[in-house]
Each structure stands twice: as structure tokens, then as C-alpha cells.
């Protein structure tokens, strides 16, 4: 029997708003423990939440970008449970009226387009962090993270493989990065992902019993955890057992899933409407205003760029993988420089420089016009490819004018025949036997002479012109 894996993902996104979701505390990471707190986010008795309107805006942005319907009725609920990192004993979340519902995300997986349904996206507050301190043998609580705004994005169970889940996550992350609503950094915890996994015989409509996977710290960990879990479930079923609905924690070191204690799973969250936040209604105009702020989203941009510039899917995917990188490309392309050369320089040498520096293109001094100028100088033969790479390495950091660098460093290729003539004549005199070989029909022997001449000119000769020149001199002198 062939099994099919069915996966739905729940993604928690920490928003990058300036302040927290229900108070005026800075929404910041990495500060000393319990320094970024106030009576409201500490849940002190008598305090009340007030919704940060920028969180609402981000929620609407995410919803619209994921092609969702925005719930015009904005309402919050309390999710009740006890945990030491949750100061109020309840989390303010959205239950029956999520800010966004019924959307989809298009992306490319296995070379094909795929559309995955988005069930819902809702706003909620993050909890604090527990830190076990061995020195005092106690668990300490850091409340800095308490009240950090979150958006939870729930997909339909429409993903069919670990790789698809990986590609969906990558596409989702890219979309969210385009919206500039979050750092989307899984290592820092600003993006977290839980996976619901089940298997069923191929062709079966009914969903199998699912397990929930938690504690994955990277997209590849999500992929490995799903692969592992799908195999575990398949082995279980083949051996006559059945899958038990439970929550499993991914153990990265051992590459296994471990069940959570059953007590921690038996939750009745007793959701009810948050009485401290009055529900309100969004106007269509307010929704339209947020829609108007949306950037062109990556998948749409990919399709447009392929059509507009006549570039390959493969290249376009790399270009749109960072909004600033694609912006850079399009700004450079506006100068009318040859687009195919430009793409090669973007995705090749420039990308290499970025990787070496571990930075984004906007961190460089290099401007789109500079790269366009560089590509143009290569194409018009002024400089060699090799020299151009050196120039690029220089100007990414210095931001100097391309032509200035060419002049200062004397990198322009020598095409002047008088100057070349003198040097070539010297070389020919020094290597009469090679000249004879060429004359007797061994044309490749000229390469040696080109190399010698190039060496003497410290690489500044235009190799094409030099080669032609040598051929001519040998045959006609």
C-alpha cells in the first residue's frame, strides 16, 4: 500500500512593530532580562490592554498578502491556561474572528506551481521565556518577550511532502519579508513553525489521525522532522498499529520525535471574549488603504520579471529571493544595460560578494548605476572580466565611480596598436621557433605568445585584440 503524507503548518510570526501589542514597551530583542516590561505586559492587577494599531495594520497586511478575506469585525478572546511565563494566566488571542481567513499562497515546488490554502491568520500576544539556572537550581522568568505581537498563520492540510512544506515555508517567509512585518528569523525565534502530520493510503479522501510536531528550529529541521514522522507513522501502520493523536517534540541532536507528557496536552483553553478590549468594525476604506500599501509580492514579481526581461525562471527566483536585490536589479536594468549580462553579474559575482560579507545589497556602498556602468565597460571591451571582478570587489565597499577606478588603477585594456606592436615584436623575436610552428599550421601555438605578451603587459591587454594582432603579425611579417 502506498501512503501519502498530509501536512498542515502553523507559523507564528513575531512582528517588528516599534512597541508591544498591548502596551507602550519597546518591542526589542536582546535586552537584559526584565528590563523591557511595564505593569501592563507584566499583567499586574488592575492593568488593561490597549491594542497597538500598527499590529492591526500588520495583521491586515499579512492577511491581504495571503489573499485572505479580512474580518471587518475585530474581536479578541482570552485563551486560559497556567504557565509561569504567562503572567495573566491567559493569552489574549483571537478565536472565532481571526483578522484574516480563507486565503492562499502560490509558490514553486519541484519546478511546478502550487497553491496552498490559508485557513486563517490571527493576532495574539507572545509569552515570556523560562530560563533554567543551574547555578541556583531554579527556573527564572524573563518577561521581556511578554506582549510581543504575533501573527499565527494556519495553512490547510494540503502539503503533500516534507519538501513541499519546506518550499511553502520559504515562499511564506519571502512574502512576509516583502511586507516588512517581521525579521522572519527562525534562529532568533521571530518565526516559529509547528507541523500537523498524518498519512493516508493514496487515493483515500479521509484524513488520518494527525500528530503535532513542535520544537523545530530551522526550515530544514521542519523538513527532517516531517520526514521522520511520516516514516514513523507508516512503520506503525504497516506493523498493524495505529497513530495516536498527540504532540511530539523534535529532538534535533538525535533526529527523533519525543512525545510530550500527556498531561501537558490535555488543555481546555476556555476561550471567551476579552472584555477589556471592545470589538470594533473596520471600514472597507481602511482595508483598501492597507491593500494600497502592499508591495508587489514575490510570486507576482517573479512572473512579471520573467516576461518583462526575458530571463529564466531560475534566474528570476534568485533575483526575487530578496526584495532589495530585485529592486537593485530593476534599477540597474533601467539604464538600458544588457539585461542578460546584468543578471549574470547580479547572480554571480555580486551574489558572491554578498555571501562573503553576509550582508544584503542595501548594506553595500555600491549603487545600481555603478553595477550597470561596470557591466557596460565589460561589454564595450574597456576592461576584462577579470579586471571587472576586481573592480567590483573594490567598489562594493568603496562606492567609487567605475571609470575613476579604471583610470586610477590603469585597468583599461590596451587596444592601441602601436603600443601592442612594440611588445608583440619583442615577443616574436624572443620566440622564433614558436613563430615557425604557427606558420607551419599549428595555430594554437599562438596562445603561448598571447600569454607572454599579456604577462609583459600585466594583464591589461585586450585578449581578443591581442590574439588577432599576433596572428596577423606572424603571417605577414
Amino acid at each position, binding site marked *: 500500500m502506498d501512503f501519502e503524507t498530509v501536512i498542515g503548518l502553523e507559523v507564528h510570526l513575531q512582528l517588528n512593530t516599534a512597541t508591544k501589542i498591548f502596551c507602550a514597551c519597546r518591542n526589542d530583542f536582546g535586552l537584559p532580562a526584565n528590563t523591557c516590561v511595564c*505593569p501592563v505586559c*507584566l*499583567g*499586574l*492587577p*488592575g*492593568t*488593561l*490592554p*490597549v*491594542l497597538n494599531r500598527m499590529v492591526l495594520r500588520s495583521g491586515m497586511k499579512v492577511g491581504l498578502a495571503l489573499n485572505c478575506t479580512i474580518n471587518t469585525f475585530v474581536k479578541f478572546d*482570552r485563551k*486560559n491556561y*497556567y504557565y*509561569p511565563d504567562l*503572567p*495573566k*494566566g*491567559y493569552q489574549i488571542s483571537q478565536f472565532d474572528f481571526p483578522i484574516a481567513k480563507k486565503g492562499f499562497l502560490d509558490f514553486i515546488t519541484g519546478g511546478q506551481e502550487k497553491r496552498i490554502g490559508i485557513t486563517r491568520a490571527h493576532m495574539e500576544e507572545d509569552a515570556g521565556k523560562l530560563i533554567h539556572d543551574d547555578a541556583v537550581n531554579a527556573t527564572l*522568568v524573563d518577561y521581556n518577550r511578554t506582549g510581543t505581537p504575533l501573527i499565527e498563520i494556519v495553512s490547510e492540510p494540503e502539503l503533500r511532502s516534507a519538501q513541499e512544506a519546506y518550499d511553502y515555508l520559504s515562499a511564506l517567509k519571502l512574502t512576509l519579508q516583502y511586507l516588512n512585518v517581521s525579521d522572519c528569523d527562525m534562529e532568533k525565534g521571530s518565526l516559529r513553525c509547528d507541523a500537523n502530520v498524518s498519512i493516508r493510503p493514496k487515493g483515500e479522501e479521509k484524513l488520518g489521525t494527525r500528530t503535532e510536531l513542535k520544537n523545530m528550529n530551522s526550515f530544514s529541521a521542519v523538513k527532517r522532522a516531517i520526514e521522520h514522522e511520516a516514516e514513523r507513522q507508516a512503520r506503525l501502520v504497516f506493523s498493524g498499529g495505529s497513530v495516536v493523536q498527540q504532540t511530539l517534540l523534535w529532538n534535533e541532536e538525535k533526529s527523533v520525535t519525543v512525545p510530550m507528557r500527556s498531561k501537558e496536552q490535555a488543555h*481546555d483553553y*476556555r*476561550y*471567551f471574549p476579552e*472584555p*477589556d*478590549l*471592545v470589538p470594533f468594525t473596520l471600514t472597507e476604506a481602511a482595508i483598501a488603504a492597507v491593500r494600497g500599501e502592499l508591495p508587489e509580492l514575490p510570486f507576482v514579481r517573479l512572473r512579471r520579471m520573467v516576461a518583462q526581461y526575458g530571463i529564466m525562471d531560475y534566474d528570476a527566483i534568485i533575483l526575487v529571493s530578496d526584495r532589495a536585490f530585485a529592486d537593485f536589479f530593476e534599477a540597474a536594468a533601467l539604464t538600458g544595460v544588457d539585461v542578460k549580462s546584468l543578471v549574470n553579474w547580479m547572480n554571480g559575482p555580486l551574489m558572491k560578494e554578498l555571501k562573503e560579507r553576509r550582508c544584503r545589497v542595501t548594506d553595500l556602498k555600491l549603487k545600481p548605476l555603478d553595477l550597470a556602468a561596470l557591466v557596460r565597460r565589460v561589454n564595450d571591451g574597456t576592461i576584462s572580466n577579470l579586471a571587472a571582478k576586481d573592480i567590483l570587489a573594490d567598489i562594493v565597499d568603496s562606492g567609487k565611480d567605475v571609470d575613476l577606478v579604471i583610470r586610477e588603477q590603469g585597468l583599461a585594456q590596451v587596444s592601441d596598436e602601436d603600443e601592442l606592436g612594440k611588445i608583440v615584436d619583442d615577443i616574436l623575436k624572443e620566440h622564433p621557433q614558436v613563430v615557425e610552428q604557427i606558420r607551419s599550421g599549428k595555430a594554437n601555438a599562438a596562445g603561448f605568445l598571447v600569454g607572454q605578451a599579456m604577462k609583459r603587459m600585466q594583464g591589461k591587454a585586450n585578449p581578443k585584440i591581442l590574439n588577432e594582432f599576433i596572428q596577423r603579425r606572424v603571417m605577414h611579417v
Partner: protein
Amino acid sequence: MDLFALTAHQIMELIASGATSPVEVAAAVRARISAVNDRTNAFIRTYQESPVGASPMPIPIGIKDNICVKGRLVTCASRILKDFCPPYDAAVIEKIRAVGGVILGSLNMDEFAFGSSSETSAYGIVRNPWDLERVPGGSSGGSAAAVAAGEAVWALGSDTGGSIRQPASFCGVVGLKPTYGRVSRYGLIAFGSSLDQIGPITKDVTDCARLLNIIAGFDRRDSTSVDLPVPDYALSLRRDVKGLRIGIPKEYFIAGIQPEVQAAVMAAVAFFRKEGAIIKDISLPHTEYAVATYYIAATAEASSNLARFDGVEFGLRAVPEKSRKAGIVDMYEETRARGFGDEAKRRIMLGTYVLSAGYYDAYYLRALKARTLIKNDLDKAFVDCDIILSPTAPTTAFRIGEKASDPLAMYLSDIFTIPANLAGVPALSLPCGFDSAGLPIGLQLMAAPFAEEKIFSTAFAYEQAHGWHTKRARLDL
């Protein structure tokens, strides 16, 4: 004339004429507290604050022990908060301070405002100044008793289901529950967030209007506070009730009501008729569901609001001598078992139950629907009436211990006050006579949302024609 026995407006006149000073007034009130508080137990603790120079309203005020005062102990009369000092002032405290109010101390109450008799306090029962063997009502029993006994010129209470009005009625003083949203709840330790309002407890209607003017107004820290201008309520203290439409709800004159209470209220009706008011018999058909609705809605919210008292961040922390379960669960259970009194536990359990999976629809959801019906009753009535008149409570003050072992009988003492909270409308209790035992009887006036002015003008007309408010409890004898 004893300064402690005067109203705030009388004291302000004496200060203006130079006959006394804020310092003298504060001293007189403190002397009174020293003399009689061991009999009333109205104050849990007192502070020695001095009046600030020339301030607009340097009146000594008592604060219910569930309103946060920066740097002072605030305990909700509960063991679980015995060491809690809020690092911030409630919005109403800021406003009191802004006019130079002298905060006398914290007033006793039912634990977490759960009760109608002030017998559930961890700091001992409060006694009614009119008869020390009787309860002062609750939950703001300390506030009403203090004002009645001259231990405070005026006081703040909170009202979730009658907790200002019923004790005002039992103690022969004036108490107002403002429109929901009229007074900021920021800094009020929540019981039922959608029902709670802070309000004045005073010796007469004039003081009530003045104190409301001090504490009312929009506060952006409380999303449920309403951004409407606050009128000068003193201007509504006119005696003209000609043409005023007063509704008498038949459901409020039920079997079991104390005959003397009914007689006093009907005498008030006769008075208004004589003065030219239009008396209308009305029906509020869903009144019979009010108590049940209230005890579901209020306890549901309370069970969640009190979840933060878990021993982690503030308040009592207790661990059992012998470990029973995981450390944190042990701590939660022991802390809450020792920290909360019986009534608090009863309400937390009730509230948790009605929100639980499988019971939510049958209880909480139905209560929400019933609440809407009760609100509709009142909305409809206020189309044809300016004021709805009724007794505040079915009886005068009952004996200490009389209902302590019968929660249901206790809950029914709030039957006339609860609808105003469920509907969010303003309601005031003022003295309207005494029963044969010499105990005060209270008259309740309700009006449409934000129609406090109508209540004040009606109450003022009655008060000035009768003079019940000039009678003082004779504690000294």
C-alpha cells in the same frame, strides 16, 4: 459642629470662609477613624498623608482596597495579595491627587468584591454603623460604612452587581454606579471586567455629583472607557421634576420584598407624582433571569481575571510541606488553596465550569444572550422613561451571619441592582427612609447610558424635600 460629620461641599465652604483648614479637616476625620474604626472595621489600613497647599478639593477620601494606589498595599481584602504594592496609581487616584484629595487609607470589602455583606474579607467583617450586629452590605461595605460613620468625608467603591448601591442603601448614604465606560477602570483590580465600574459613595447627592466630576472621563489606557465630554454635574442639581417620566417596573416589586421597603419606595413615587412627574407602570420582562445571567457572566470573567494570582510574579507564594506533584503545580495549588477564601474559590470554580468545553454553550453563551435581552428591556424602557425607580435592595441590612451560609439567598440581595450592570446603565441609591428597626432604606434611580444628570436632578429633588441624608448613624451611643 463635628467636622467629620460634614459633607465635602460644606467643608469646602468652611475652608473658603477661613473657618477651618484642610489640615484641621484631615485631623478631625483621622480622629474619628481612631475613635470608631475598631467598631466598624471599615478601614483595613490608614496612611498619614497631609493636605497639599492650596488645592481645589483637599477632601479626605477613603479608597476601596481594590483600587491601586502607588506604593501602598492593595490587597482586595485577600490573603493572596497580602504584600502587593502596585507601582502605579489607578486613573481615579491620579484624578483625586490632581485636585489635592487626601487619601486616608484602604477600605474593607468582600474579598475580591465577591459578596453582598462584607463578611468575606480576610481582614474581618465590616459592621454597619447603624447597628453593629448587622452587615453594611457589600462588596463596598467598608466604603459605605466609613462614610456613614464619618470616618471618611467621601469614598470610592466599585460596583459589579450592586457593590456600591446595596451598601449605600444599607448604610444610609448615597452611592452611584456610573455608566459603563464613564470612569476609567485602569488600576481597578478586576472582578467582572465587562461589569465593573468605580463610583462615588457620599453623604449626599451634591457630593456624589462633585466626586463623579473629579473621577469621570476618557482614559486611553482603558479601551472600554468612552470618549464623551464630562458635563458639570453640579449644574444638574435642580429640583425640577415636572414632566419627568418615571417608570416603575412591576418585576421589581415582588413577593419577599420587605413591606417597609416597599412602603418607603411607594411613598417616594407619590412624592414625584405630586411634584408633577409622570409615573408610568412598566415591565422589564427578563428581570427574572438577571441574577442567573450575572452569576454566569461575572464568575466566568472572574475565573480568568484571578488566574494571575498564581504565586509566580506577585502576591502570596506557598508550597506544600510534602511535594505532591510537579513543583510548579504544587506551588499553584498550595498558593491558591491558602490564598483565596471560600467565596472566591466558589466563584472561580463556577466561572471555570461555565467556560469549560461542553458547558460553554449551555451556560456562558446563553448568559450572553440573556444579557442582551435584559439590556434590550432597559433600552426599550428608556425610550418612554427618563428614570426607572425601584428599591435598591429587597430588604434593609440583614444580621451578620444571617445569609453567610446560604450563598443563593445572598445572591438574591442583588436582584434589583444587577440589571444596571448587565446593561451598562447608570444607577444611584439614596436614602428614602428608615424601617422600624431604625435601619436605612435605599431608593434606586436608573437612567439611560450617560444620563447621570437626570439621575442627579431627580435624586436632588427628592433629597432636598426629605432630608433623610442629614440623619447620621449614632455610633457614639
